[in-house]
């Protein structure tokens, strides 16, 4: 970071701005290193089918991580993303299977369930001033229990809604370009990434998301209705989680009420590996996407190499630290 005080030289500004882009590129290059290593180590790794498998494996965690990113940029945290995802899946199941509603109702219902839950979390944080960690920890447990209650502790299958598995498993791209059967789940991940990137950078909600994480008190002193925007942020995150719920339900062709807890850690890890700071104010969806990819590439690559599972865990831990450290080293050198 240049510290020279002349501020009107465009070259300097350009330098600052492009250095941001460069940072992302660097996290990306960590990913590339992994890809290169694994493809040298195993001929199976870079096959189209495996690449698609990696992308497909990223879709659910990726969408969850994008939701977590939004909240983390405000300086908050959302521990409920995992069980909320399940809850939304169960709601879709109740609507479609138990009540025989048409597909769009189920889709909207799941997303709406996510939004409402986000509204509630946001209200608890903004109005009751309960720290986000506690508010979303509570919501995590509440939603986990409610999923079991609503589903009767049984999975709900979507066998009566034939189109449902197409949401994640079908391939729109594949039906046009048969050589590239990118599953819709992956498409949806990228779509969500683009939309949320856009919201964060181009709308008032996005602006306040960063502002809140940067200095909430200053935002309040500026006369902004901090509470309302904060609730909005959690609600947006909730609706993104609703999409993740649809994705996982579609992949499993069922709403599994017992699933979900523990997924929040993977999601938050993807966010942090992607360079978003837990103290708020900065972060990018692209970084999160790369973080999520690093996690799935690692898991896939180590499995492809048939590394013993206990060692997989060790190596994953090491590489997560190293990847972030390498990124820090490079930034320091800039």
């Amino acid at each position: 970071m240049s510290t020279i005080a002349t501020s009107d030289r465009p070259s300097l500004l350009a330098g600052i701005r492009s250095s941001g882009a460069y940072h992302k590129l660097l996290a990306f290059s960590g990913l590339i290193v992994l890809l290169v290593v694994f493809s040298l180590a195993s001929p199976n790794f870079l096959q189209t089918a495996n690449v698609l498998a990696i992308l497909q494996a990223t879709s659910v965690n990726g969408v969850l991580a994008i939701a977590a990113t939004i909240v983390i940029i405000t300086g908050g945290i959302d521990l409920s993303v995992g069980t909320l995802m399940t809850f939304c899946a169960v709601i879709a199941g109740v609507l479609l299977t138990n009540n025989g509603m048409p597909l769009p109702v189920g889709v909207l219902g799941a997303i709406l369930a996510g939004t409402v839950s986000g509204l509630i979390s946001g209200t608890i944080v903004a109005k009751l001033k309960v720290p986000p960690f506690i508010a979303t920890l509570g919501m995590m447990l509440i939603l986990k229990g409610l999923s079991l209650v609503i589903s009767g502790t049984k999975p709900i299958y979507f066998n009566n809604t034939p189109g449902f598995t197409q949401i994640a498993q079908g391939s729109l791209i594949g039906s046009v370009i048969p050589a590239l059967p990118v599953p819709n789940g992956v498409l949806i991940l990228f779509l969500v990434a683009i939309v949320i990137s856009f919201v964060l950078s181009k709308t008032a909600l996005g602006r306040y998301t960063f502002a809140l994480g940067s200095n909430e008190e200053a935002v309040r002193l500026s006369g902004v209705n901090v509470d309302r925007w904060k609730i909005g942020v959690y609600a947006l995150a909730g609706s993104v989680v609703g999409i993740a719920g649809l994705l996982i339900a579609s992949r499993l062709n069922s709403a599994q009420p017992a699933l979900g807890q523990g997924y929040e850690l993977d999601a938050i890890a993807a966010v942090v590996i992607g360079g978003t700071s837990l103290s708020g104010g900065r972060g990018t969806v692209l970084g999160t996407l790369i973080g999520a990819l690093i996690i799935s590439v690692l898991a896939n690559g180590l499995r492809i190499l048939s590394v013993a599972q206990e060692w997989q865990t060790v190596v994953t831990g090491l590489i997560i630290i190293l990847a972030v450290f390498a990124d820090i080293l490079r930034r320091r050198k800039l």
Partner: protein
Amino acid sequence: MIPLVSMTGIDKSFPGVRALKGAQFELLSGEVHALMGENGAGKSTLMKILSGVYSADTGQILVDGKPATISGPREAQALGISIIHQELALMRDLTAAQNIFIGREPRRGFLLDEAALNRDAEAIFRSMNLALDPRVPVESLTIAKQQMVEIAKALSYRSRVLIMDEPTAALNDAEINELFTIIERLKAEGVGIVYISHKMDELKRIADRVTVMRDGEYVGTVPAALTPIETIIQMMVGRTLSNETAVVPDTAAAPVALEVRGLSRGREIRDVSFAVRKGEILGFAGLMGAGRTEVARAIFGADPLEAGEILVDGTKVTIRSPQDAVRAGIGYLSEDRKHFGLATGMDVRNNIALASLRRFTGAAGVLRDGAMRQTAQGFIKQLAIKTPSDTQEARLLSGGNQQKVVIAKWLLRDCPILIFDEPTRGIDIGAKSEIYKLLNALAAQGRAIIVISSELPEVLRLSHRIAVMCEGRLTGFLPAGAPQQDIMRLATLRPSAVETSEPNRKAAS
């Protein structure tokens, strides 16, 4: 004429502190009304009440003669009241323009209109003759420029009442001049301005009336032009202060305590060499961004160096971290107390002891809290730190008192070489002269002292010798009492951030 604002009988208490006792204040339209008082007198608190940050316990506020309840910043804005806070309240990760228009972003339909946002910010900067790119993140700006952004933000509301809480604490002369031009213009437009400052000379230049507070109470209101400064000071501190000038001791024969040779780092520090003798106060003058802070931080090991060597008592020392520096006997008081000086969540006692914990560590690593308390209370008395107790959290102190706590920390650490970066920023006139006395006493005891200050009178009054910097270079040394023009000549080998020359101004408008 109905006053724009009239506050009467305002009481405000915080846990353990009664900040305001029946305070009163009146503001007419088109006047600059200075609010004066010692650190902790309650100036900021009173203005925070007017701007909706706090609500008063009791008391009445009239706006345009009508009772007003101001329950939040929004309501204050709706009444046409805006404020520049003493402690900067910026969103560090946002750009200057985004900060200025937070909550009022121009939009096109659903979307933010970033182009319009930057255009509008640019226009405000231009009206302030400020050369600043609206797209820079404020985090990368100096405090001075951050202060300018705050001013721009306050101006952007086009309020009828504009409160400025120590707006010039971080500004240099050129920038202050520019601010005063803006104030004159607003005044002509009928805006009422509340002006809080500890710089007495500013009163005569812009204030119409002066209200003085002491210990949360109203002391009196006097016309600025007709009242001698001494009278105002007496109202503030309850006694008269003598105005001494520097007595320059002869230190030519004293041994050199600190010498630096060829310090360099990129364009920020270019080949800086100087020496300070024991018992000498070396003043550093220069414009904003001249690199004085950079030099100090580099000597202190807070930032890396590319080249150069540092000698303490004639021996070369390696300083890679502040710890090395302190070990070598160098202390550094930062210019940014909030970020670099105070552990804001900790109490006064621990902040004072922070750099010297070892001296309070007894057997088995157990701290001697009693000794710490005594020491802290000693400094509280010596520096007249206004705090209900030494266990008050530092962040709850008034700005000036926070600064005194940081000073106490370094006095306690007792380094033979002390670098003070803007030591009196936000400190009231009474305490200032106390600190000057203290610095002189420290020098008399044989310590080598470097004082970096953006206030020329301060540099002139304290220094035994003056070093001037510009653009990272040391442009020259001057003897004590050198004329101000000489300093300015050495300091302005390049224009400051604010463009003061007439042709530029025309070109901008």
